[in-house]
């Protein structure tokens, strides 16, 4: 937590002006670590349950699409067209304007190269960043902040829940804001702070000092957070609201994580309306509110979505879809070269389908994330964030940012 100027990387990257830190209240300055610096941020939103890529980014121009989905296909007339070939599901209307303004990009046929169709394994691989290697202990987002130069701050990586998700777990410090929010208040908090700051154990003192500062900083940030935006009801809106408040308070956040469940639609998925549409409406409204809330700060932020895999190209006998392979990613940000559809589209012709049933993966999810880590966050350690991943062999970066 303390600022040390001796670190070479620290000075070289010019992370903090000590003078700027000195003008902040001491606890905020300690918490911020890099306050005053215009720092770029990455927000990862995980769509758990394997969202149906073909009905989110609808390939309405692919002649095979509609026949594969007699009851589930989104009619071309309802699709929010992006480029004549692909269109957004109509329930994503809240974020469609971002595509027009060039801030939203979509990556089709993206996902993990690992063939597993287990939610558990596939999510695990996407959070560890090492498909096929279940033993990886750290999440890739933790490695991102662990590889940043400078003295480090738990504020570098935050998640709004009560405890850290897999993607943020690891040796680099990170904050679970939901846990902080539960901290005692008032006289109880003051008594505890006296006890802990007076502990005979140096490590306890240091940790507690960081904890009490973090609680104060979070509460100050949440008090200061305005109501520029109306978030939709539901867990995702609540999570993004909390993330927006700490981003706006300039506490030094580099990476944040949120998730939304309920995308596993084996039965009655629905088309223009229905179960998937409801989830997408919540997603779109929450992202749009988040963007509105960030306002001027949004230029430094990139939001990227993940989902563990896609679903079968053909609808099943229950008006739903089963576990498939290729998925999609949404990339939203001030510096994103948006308004374009990225990724090679293999087509949905029978001979193109993975195992004869699923959209293939033509873009490894690490290619998108690696580019964001390198070109957006400015970390040169893509090889450490995604060990064993060969960017060149995977086809090279897509040119999403910069």
């Amino acid at each position, binding site marked *: 937590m303390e600022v040390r100027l001796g670190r070479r990387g620290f000075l070289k990257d010019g992370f903090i002006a000590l003078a700027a830190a000195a003008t902040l209240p001491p606890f905020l300055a300690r918490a911020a670590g890099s306050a005053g610096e215009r720092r770029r941020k990455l927000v990862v939103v995980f769509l758990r349950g394997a969202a149906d890529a073909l009905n989110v980014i609808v390939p309405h121009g692919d002649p095979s699409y509609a026949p594969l989905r007699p009851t589930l296909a989104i009619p071309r007339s309802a699709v929010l067209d992006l480029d004549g070939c692909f269109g957004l599901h109509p329930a994503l209307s809240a974020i469609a304007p971002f595509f027009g303004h060039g801030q939203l990009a979509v990556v089709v046929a993206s996902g993990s190269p690992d063939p597993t169709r287990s939610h*558990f394994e596939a999510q*695990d691989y996407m959070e560890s960043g090492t498909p096929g290697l*279940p*033993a990886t*202990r750290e999440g890739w987002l933790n490695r991102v902040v662990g590889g940043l130069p400078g003295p480090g701050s*738990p504020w570098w990586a935050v998640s709004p829940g*009560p*405890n*850290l998700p*897999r993607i943020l777990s690891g*040796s680099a*410090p990170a*904050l*679970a*804001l*939901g*846990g*902080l*929010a*539960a*901290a*005692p208040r008032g*006289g*109880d908090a*003051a*008594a*505890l702070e*006296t*006890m*802990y700051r*007076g*502990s*005979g*154990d140096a490590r*306890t003192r240091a*940790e*507690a000092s*960081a*904890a009490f500062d*973090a*609680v104060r900083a979070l509460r100050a940030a949440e008090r200061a957070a305005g109501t520029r935006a109306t978030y939709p009801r539901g867990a995702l809106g609540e999570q993004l609201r909390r993330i927006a408040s700490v981003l706006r308070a300039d506490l030094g956040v580099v990476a944040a994580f949120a998730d939304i469940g309920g995308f596993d639609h*084996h*039965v*009655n998925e*629905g088309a223009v*309306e*229905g*179960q998937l549409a409801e989830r997408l409406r919540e997603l779109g409204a929450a992202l749009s509110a988040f963007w509105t809330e960030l306002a001027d700060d949004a230029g430094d932020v990139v939001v990227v979505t993940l989902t563990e895999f896609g679903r079968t190209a053909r609808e099943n006998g*229950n*008006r739903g879809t089963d576990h498939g392979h290729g998925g999609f990613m949404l990339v939203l940000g001030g510096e994103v070269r948006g308004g374009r559809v990225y990724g090679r589209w293999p087509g949905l012709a029978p001979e193109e389908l993975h195992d004869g049933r699923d959209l293939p993966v033509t873009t490894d999810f690490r290619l998108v994330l690696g580019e964001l880590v390198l070109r957006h966050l400015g970390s040169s350690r893509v090889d450490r964030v995604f060990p064993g991943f060969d960017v060149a062999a995977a086809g090279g970066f897509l040119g999403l940012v910069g």
Partner: protein
Amino acid sequence: MPPRAVAIALIVVVVEVLPACAGPNASLRVAEDPSPAEVQRAVHALGRLGFGARPGEAEEVARFGIERWIAVQLHPERIDEGALSRRLLAFPTLDLGPEDLARRFPPGPVVRAVSRGELAAPGDPDGRAIYETQLARRRERTKGHATEDDRGPAASDEILPEEAERLLLLPPEGRVAYVLSLPPEDRLGLLRALRPAERWQLRRGLSPSDREVLVALSAPAQVPAGELADAKLLRAIAGERQLLEVMTDFWEDHFNVFVHKGAIPWLLGAYERDAIRPHALGRFRDLLGATARSPAMLFYLDNWLSVGSRSPRGLRTFGREGLNENYARELLELHTLGAEGGFTQRDVEEVARCFTGWTLQRPFWGGGFTFDPRRHEPGDKVVLGQIIREAGQREGEEVLDLLAQDPRTARRIALRLAVRFVSDDPPSTLVDRLAAAFENSGGDIRTVLLTLFGDPTFWATPVRGAKLKTPLELVASAVRASGAAVEEPEALVETLRKMGMAPYSMPTPNGYSWRADAWSGAGALAQRTAFALRLCRGEIPGVQVDSVALAGGASDPAQDLARLERVLLGGVVSPTTHEAVLARVAAARPEERDALAAGLLLASPEFQRR
């Protein structure tokens, strides 16, 4: 009864009574009070071999004799647990096998079989209600979303809450009858309309079987999984066989499985009851074999799916099914040799080949272990440079023999025991001694523990309080220290979930960490301190603390505080903590003081360690 058996029975009875009594059996007590140093040693023993001291327990153990107490803890079969057993009757699934569980609380595949007419639903009214409701859920999902749209959201927002309110006002025995009087579709709608707190309220005071029915209507898997988690908490808090509970937990982390994967909710109870607990203090090889053959482990690490590529089945499916290395890798890396164990990818594959054919018969139906020769890879294998001759199922056992005898395994188990019981970075000389005890005893866990507890390092001053409690240890020890009456442990399980340590919920095979870095940090501290205050204020549903009785009820706050410090912290409290609590209590209303003081002491830096 032959004379010898009578003699043993007598010994058992005498030994049984002593450690279990927390006071009443005064005639067996030694008259003089133990020295403070001896009480401190007892506090240490209780915090390491168990989940912390209950009020007065440290003095009790010191009087009984600490070494004697440890000897008894190493033989849990001699400790009477009648009281706990009676409490555990509240969780009837603990005694059922996977097959019965899967029939009673049906997983998806069983419901599907009934819906297709391949299987009859049970005949008893409760069983029929559970199936009817699951079938209704299935119909609802397959029928078409429109029907749910017409009725669903609007209905659950407006009409049902009134019904829910009426339901919650009913006496316990009336609630289930009322829910079951509804058509299955409406049962689902009603249960969905309840908020989590209301659902909890709905279950309060129900008989175990009524509660099971109600839980099963919404989520059959939650019946066995929830009861296991509740029982784990109750055992840690109210169990007399503390070392057995600690070691059961130790091995459950070492041989971790994840309750939220597939069929595991129905397999986990048998795993703990039949594979882990009976061997927790026994021979490592027996434990290793029991986990290897257990349906829970075979399912969790996918070995049940593994097929040798040259096996009859592998050849027939043209590579669509193949070798799964998941179990083999974790067996080497986590269960035995360790990541630095010097094995190669080739070893992993060869071990996986040895274990091909170790599979399950219909895990979702509770089917058990079976060896399927059609999946087994033919030919000799080479593991760690040793040839394993083709021998079918026997090959896996040979691999386990090889691994259990390997000095690297001895060293790894020794290190993990030292980390759990001594410190995060235990002296390597201690680990050496434990590893030697492991090897010399042929992997006898009890012998290794005896060596550990007899080692001066275990009792050394720097080791006292060196371990940061994990959330499980914190929650269990706080409830024990406070002498709380736990009516229902469910809210404590929820507390653990929020702290990131819900029972059986570590998804990755490495199990929960026992090191401080995993459980420290700002969010953790906030939650731990908040929990302690809520506990003593009576804000944890189902758990009652009598702080006034705990504090002795003197009119002088300082006197009450001194007593609380003795009871909750064994009297070891820093001046800073003492002053901070005293100042805070002085500013509080008299009727709140004892709960506040107790809460702050359980939230203190002192109580976070053991």
